[in-house]
């Protein structure tokens, strides 16, 4: 069997070396268009785990590589005037040039034919397999773009890759602001005398600084001045350095084995890229190489049986693609963190560092406590101090157990329970299993118990079995429950276009067959199969305000500690906020100013009538074309803050039934973090939270203030 590898980077060389080594009968050739020793970039970083896999794959090159390593076990973060060190993070760096040298020599040693300054086209080759290791702009892949379906997304930040003679003893992040904006550095040592020094900033900052029209020398001069204090006299060195946006590449498939044409396997950057802030593309490419070679060995594919080779390629893709996709997801989270760092400049150094270290979702509070218990003690102490604890306290509870001041009401901890109602209430009076669930939640020592939707009027119910707060019997039944103790908040809701449906235990949004009632909404737009609602008019506008006012007073009489006004999930107020469901042309429609007018009126009324803290559930993104995005939510929350809003619950989707769900908790977290840190209003987040460790991670990283724990009594 004859294999041709196009591209002599670390991934292509390593794959060729491993294939040839395990099956000496193979004929393997590497075509590299550049001369030997012509390389871009400075150093490459590997984690402990990657090194272990190198050792197992080819011991000899592993030893050569580790002989040239720089190893460190800490991450330093320079932020404002502080330096925080996070220990227990073992990484190693090596010069990219050295790595290529080692791999090229080892290839030659095992009998791979490495040809530099040779440019080839895959379709002209008569080999049995072509490994396309020719980088993100792979010509091999592009020639079959209709099969591989590459998609590239450009990052929003700009970065440039320098080297420096500054000796570092750790992976170092530097955050530094000047009049042009905020700059950050990712720096790490790699050969004892040199370190990689990547400077990154937002597009806006980049333009403010004039770097978009700066020459290479001018860019260096600018960065040297900016980071003079950190460089301590060391120079920045360029290697054809340019300011670029990070391109994230995804491909639909990595292998193509059509009859009559040469089979192609993508490897490394030609198949995928992931933001440099959580690991190098070199690491991914070399891991791809290990997987490909292993599949060949397992399937005995080197013998020349085309079927065995095809199966081996499928194994390679099935093993690696899901792993790389998860890595890309984490990299995306890390990338969007670095694109938003200006938002975190208000955070205390400990919280800032904790957020930075947990940015990709791969490290949580529990992992960090193991790696560096002292750092976590500081994080706990600072977090508790921010909520009235002493900054000098010898011990502090983890964030989830720190008390929270909800608009003057003290919650003992940050854990919220919100039992879902099955619809067992009678005429709005909470009863049956819903009552038992609520009682049991109130006895579970959570900081706060939030009810499911409670209707402000009989016609505001979602289903006939919903609880309400519009008559005295309803007030009384809640009061009996709440008098037993525990902090409780009520979600006040009018169902709008989602009203008059069968119980949710039998599915969502199924209209009642009988005993239905007319629906009211911003505009006559039906929610799924529900009846078409009537648009709110002057009379019903006054009635709804009165209903919310009465319900708010009743919430106080019943003994609720807080009220959350439901402005999301496609119900009445949520329907006003989105252009998908609000097509009004009067003062209650149009732009976001108009669309939020009525929800804000309601909020003001509730706030005036309820003695305690009032918050709102908001939809931070409709997740639907033509719907609201986070900017609309920020505009709403800014107004709510002016009205003294104590808390916002962050939700997304459900404005119409046709939204695209995102079940990975990251999507909601990133919205919560943005709303919270830009508005200053505390945020409540729920959904997929199943552990207290997760709550500690979210709170410690300033992504939320209260969390709904998934709870099964």
């Amino acid at each position, binding site marked *: 069997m004859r294999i041709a590898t196009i591209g002599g980077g670390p991934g292509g060389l390593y794959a060729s070396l491993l294939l040839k080594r395990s099956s000496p009968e193979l004929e393997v050739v590497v075509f590299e268009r550049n001369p030997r020793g012509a390389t871009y970039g400075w150093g490459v970083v590997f984690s402990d785990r990657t090194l272990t896999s190198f050792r197992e794959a080819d011991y000899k090159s592993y030893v050569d590589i580790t002989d040239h390593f720089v190893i460190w076990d800490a991450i330093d973060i320079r932020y404002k005037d502080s330096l925080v060190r996070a220990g227990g993070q073992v990484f190693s760096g090596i010069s990219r040039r050295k790595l290529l040298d080692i791999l090229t020599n080892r290839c030659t040693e095992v009998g791979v034919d490495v040809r530099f300054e040779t440019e080839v086209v895959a379709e002209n080759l008569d080999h049995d397999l072509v490994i396309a290791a020719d980088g993100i702009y792979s010509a091999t892949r592009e020639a079959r773009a209709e099969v591989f379906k590459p998609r590239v997304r450009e990052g929003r930040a700009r970065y440039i890759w320098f080297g420096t003679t500054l000796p570092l003893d750790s992976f170092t992040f530097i955050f530094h602001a000047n009049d042009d904006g905020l700059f950050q550095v990712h720096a790490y040592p790699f050969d004892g005398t040199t370190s990689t020094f990547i400077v990154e900033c937002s597009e806006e900052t980049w333009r403010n600084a004039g770097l978009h029209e700066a020459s290479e020398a001018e860019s260096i001069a600018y960065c040297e001045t900016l980071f003079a204090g950190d460089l301590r006299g060391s120079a920045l060195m360029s290697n054809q350095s340019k300011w670029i946006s990070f391109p994230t590449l995804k491909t639909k498939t990595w292998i193509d084995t059509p009859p009559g044409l040469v089979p192609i396997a993508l490897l490394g950057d030609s198949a995928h890229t992931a933001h440099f802030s959580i690991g190098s593309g070199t690491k991914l490419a070399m891991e791809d190489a290990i997987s490909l070679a292993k599949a060949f060995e397992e399937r005995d594919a080197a013998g020349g049986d085309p079927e065995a080779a095809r199966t081996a390629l499928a194994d390679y893709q099935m093993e690696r693609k899901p792993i790389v996709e998860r890595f890309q997801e984490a990299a995306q989270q890390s990338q969007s963190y670095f694109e938003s760092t200006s938002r975190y400049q208000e955070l205390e150094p400990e919280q800032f560092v904790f957020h930075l270290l947990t940015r990709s979702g791969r490290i949580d509070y529990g992992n960090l406590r193991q790696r560096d218990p002292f750092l976590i003690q500081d994080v706990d102490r600072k977090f508790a101090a921010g909520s009235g604890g002493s900054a000098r306290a010898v011990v502090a509870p983890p964030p989830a157990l720190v008390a929270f001041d909800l608009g003057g009401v003290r919650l003992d901890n940050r854990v919220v329970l919100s039992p879902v109602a099955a619809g067992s209430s009678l005429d709005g009076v909470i009863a049956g299993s819903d009552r038992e669930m609520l009682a049991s939640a109130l006895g579970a020592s959570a900081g706060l118990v939030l009810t*499911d939707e409670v209707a402000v009027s009989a016609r505001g119910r979602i289903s006939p079995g919903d609880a309400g707060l519009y008559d005295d019997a309803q007030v009384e039944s809640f009061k009996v429950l709440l008098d037993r103790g525990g902090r409780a908040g009520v979600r006040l809701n009018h169902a709008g276009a989602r009203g008059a449906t069968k119980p949710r235990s039998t599915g969502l949004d199924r209209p009642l067959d009988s005993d239905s009632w007319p629906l009211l909404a911003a505009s006559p737009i039906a929610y799924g199969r529900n009846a078409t609602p009537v648009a709110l008019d002057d009379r019903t506008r006054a009635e709804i305000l009165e209903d919310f006012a009465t319900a708010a007073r009743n919430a106080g009489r019943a003994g609720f500690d807080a009220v959350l006004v439901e402005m999301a999930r496609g119900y009445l107020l949520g329907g006003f906020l989105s252009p998908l469901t609000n097509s009004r042309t009067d003062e209650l429609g149009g732009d976001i100013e108009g669309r939020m007018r009525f929800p804000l009126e309601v909020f003001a009324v509730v706030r005036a009538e309820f003695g305690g803290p009032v918050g709102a559930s908001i939809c931070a993104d409709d997740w639907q074309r033509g719907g609201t995005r986070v900017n609309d939510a920020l505009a709403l929350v800014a107004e709510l803050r002016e009205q003294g809003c104590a808390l916002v619950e962050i939700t997304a989707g459900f404005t119409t039934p046709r939204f*695209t769900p995102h*079940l990975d*908790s990251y999507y909601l977290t990133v919205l919560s973090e943005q709303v919270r840190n830009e508005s200053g209003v505390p945020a409540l987040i729920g*959904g997929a939270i199943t552990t207290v460790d997760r709550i500690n991670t979210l709170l410690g990283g300033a992504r939320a203030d209260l969390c709904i724990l*998934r709870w099964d009594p």
Partner: protein
Amino acid sequence: MHVGIGLPNSVPGTDARLLLDWARRAEGSPFASLGVVDRMRHDSHEPMSLLAAVAATTTRIDLVTMVVIGPLRRTPIFVREAATIQGISRGRLTLGLAVGARPDDYDALGERHEGRGHRLDEQLADLRDGFEELERGPHLLVGGGSDISLMRAARYADGYVHGGGPPRSFQRAADRATTAWIEAGRPGKPKLWAQAYFALGDDATIERGRSYMRDYYAFTGPFAAKITEGLLTTPQSIAQFVRGYAEAGCDHLVLLPAVAELEQHDRLATVMSS
């Protein structure tokens, strides 16, 4: 966790009467359910009519489709078929639906592949309404791995049916299905169903099972080999697999046969009772 057994209704060359013998035997064995698959091919037995016959032959065991390709069936007739099976079986039917993974199933009926998700949404809503007149409608399950499928299960169904794989992959899907359920405001928890293929016996029997798997999954091209490796072929691997699924929170696991011989039923029954 309940464990059910599949009927080999899609194994080519299977005599329809063997399927009924199989069902009678399962009725007297420890299995909680009998499952069928749906494949638009001439040598595959049609699942709904088969379940009607099985319903008449049995009195205890639950009946489940794992899964029926909903958008290929005309809903009004489909509702009545299911209602009839539900009537004959006295409420033992669970209906699993999905859009299916094979474009050629759609081609075989001249149906469009595009818009299948939306058609399934409509069908699920219609099924719900259609079953309401029954004293006890069949439970509905939705299959599929995307977030859209999982939200579809949360919106319309009683639970989620996973397509197969190691316990870890089930666990990940089950977590997301539960998240969708909670986000949708559904009370309680989704019913979580899963499936896997088995073939027990001597090497020749196992090889026949593998060859069925390769053929059944041939539409995945070179990936069929890897999927075939997931075939459970020893009592030990079955015991471990069942335990892994139970620990991952599965409510009901159906083990589907890759070989259409009654002995397969007995071998699995022995494994499950030990």
